[in-house]
């Protein structure tokens, strides 16, 4: 946990310094608008920088009494999370080019297969049902402009 805290705190510290730098670059106020656009983000980022520096120091000096525990993270979980996350990114890309319906069939089939390891026909049936129902309800009934792709589904 201590190591994780240090990593997160340093990332946040770097991020807030970047924001402070960006906020300083924002134009000064325009007539009639009071505070300029950069003022509030500047102070917020300054506070965030202070707090994350504090977290960093506490953990480097090992003063954080709550940081004693071990983070539950193993290689296998990391891989599973990575696979799911990549799947979701692919889902987004598929949605844009193949259309929402087809992408959904793929996603639901793949996820239920991976998480539950059912027979493939069951998984694909679930995928088709979810895709058809959501397309019917959202695209056709609520006329939501879901991406159609070249097959129009």
């Amino acid at each position, binding site marked *: 946990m201590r190591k994780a805290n240090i990593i997160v705190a340093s990332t946040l510290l770097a991020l807030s310094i970047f924001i402070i730098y960006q906020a300083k670059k924002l134009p000064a106020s*325009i*007539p*009639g*608008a*009071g505070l300029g656009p950069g003022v509030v983000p500047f102070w917020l980022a300054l506070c965030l920088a202070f707090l994350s520096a504090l977290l960093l120091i506490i953990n480097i000096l090992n003063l954080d009494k709550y940081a004693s525990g071990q983070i539950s993270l193993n290689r296998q979980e990391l891989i599973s999370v990575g696979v799911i996350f990549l799947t979701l990114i692919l889902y987004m890309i598929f949605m844009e080019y193949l259309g929402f319906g087809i992408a959904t069939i793929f996603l639901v089939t793949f996820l239920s297969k991976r998480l539950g390891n059912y027979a493939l026909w069951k998984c694909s049936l679930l995928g088709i049902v979810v895709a058809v129902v959501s397309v*019917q309800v959202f695209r*056709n*009934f609520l*006329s939501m*402009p879901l991406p159609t792709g070249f097959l129009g589904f």
Partner: protein
Amino acid sequence: MRKKFNLLIGIVLITALLFTLTGCASKDSKAVYPSKPVNMIIAFTAGGSSDVQARVVEKFWKKEFNNQPLVFDYKVGAGGQVGFTEITKANPDGYTIGGINVPHIVFQALSSQATFKTEDFAYIAQVVKDPLLLAVKKDSPINNLNDFIAEAKKKDGKMNVGIVGPFTAHHVGIFQLADELKIKVNPVIFKGAADQNVALLGGHVDAMLGNLNDVMRDLNNFKILALADDQRHPWIKDVPTFKEQNVNFKADIRRGFAAPKNIKPEVLQKLREGFKKICNDPEYLKEMEKIGQPAAYLSGEEFEKYVQEYTVNAKSVIEKYGLK
């Protein structure tokens, strides 16, 4: 239990009905435009003034355009900039048009973060001209423009005037008005007409530079000092214009429709003619009065000319007041 069952049947029937309704796209006849539904981009939220106006147009659209429906597409964000940009970048086949607002598009096109130019639009028609007005609360001691000037002088620049901003007709207008009246006021920017009106009614600002459309909702609670237009408006006949009081101040917000610039001339012509017919339909004018938006038709050419003139004007104003 039985009743609930009946209700259930009712819902199933209605759902079925709706499915069939949405499924029934009309048959297309190839050659004539439009042969399929036309997309309408709205740059503000569903239910906002721009949307409500476009929905009125929708009621008359099918009659003029081959019985094809309009499909609404809301592209909201950054004060309309997202939607306006979306219109300029759309396929110029005539199947995507959108609602535009002046002076929003002019200021956004002049801004350092511009994502389009005013020349990127093919202007179809202007449909609404909503004049600005100076208003105070009903029980305010200020009764007319002279009182307002006196009060502003007394407060020496500390008089708070609510505007909708920034980079809007109101924002630029308040500086111009203060110059014309030779007074100093302190503008307070609100995000929308709703917040602005509440702040005035609650007495948190002394006056506001608002729109006719917004005060129409609740005329009883406002006292309107002057209207920023050439003539008095029929809805508020007893409110004098600035001009009548020898103040040279005219400002308004306009709504219109546009397509991407590379649209085929004959399609643009068709759109312009269709809108002209819609806008002169007495039924349409009645609907517009019901929604409280002052209808004012201008043809596409006239609207384009107006935008060009306004742009020239706006450039000098922006420089003058340092609004960059």
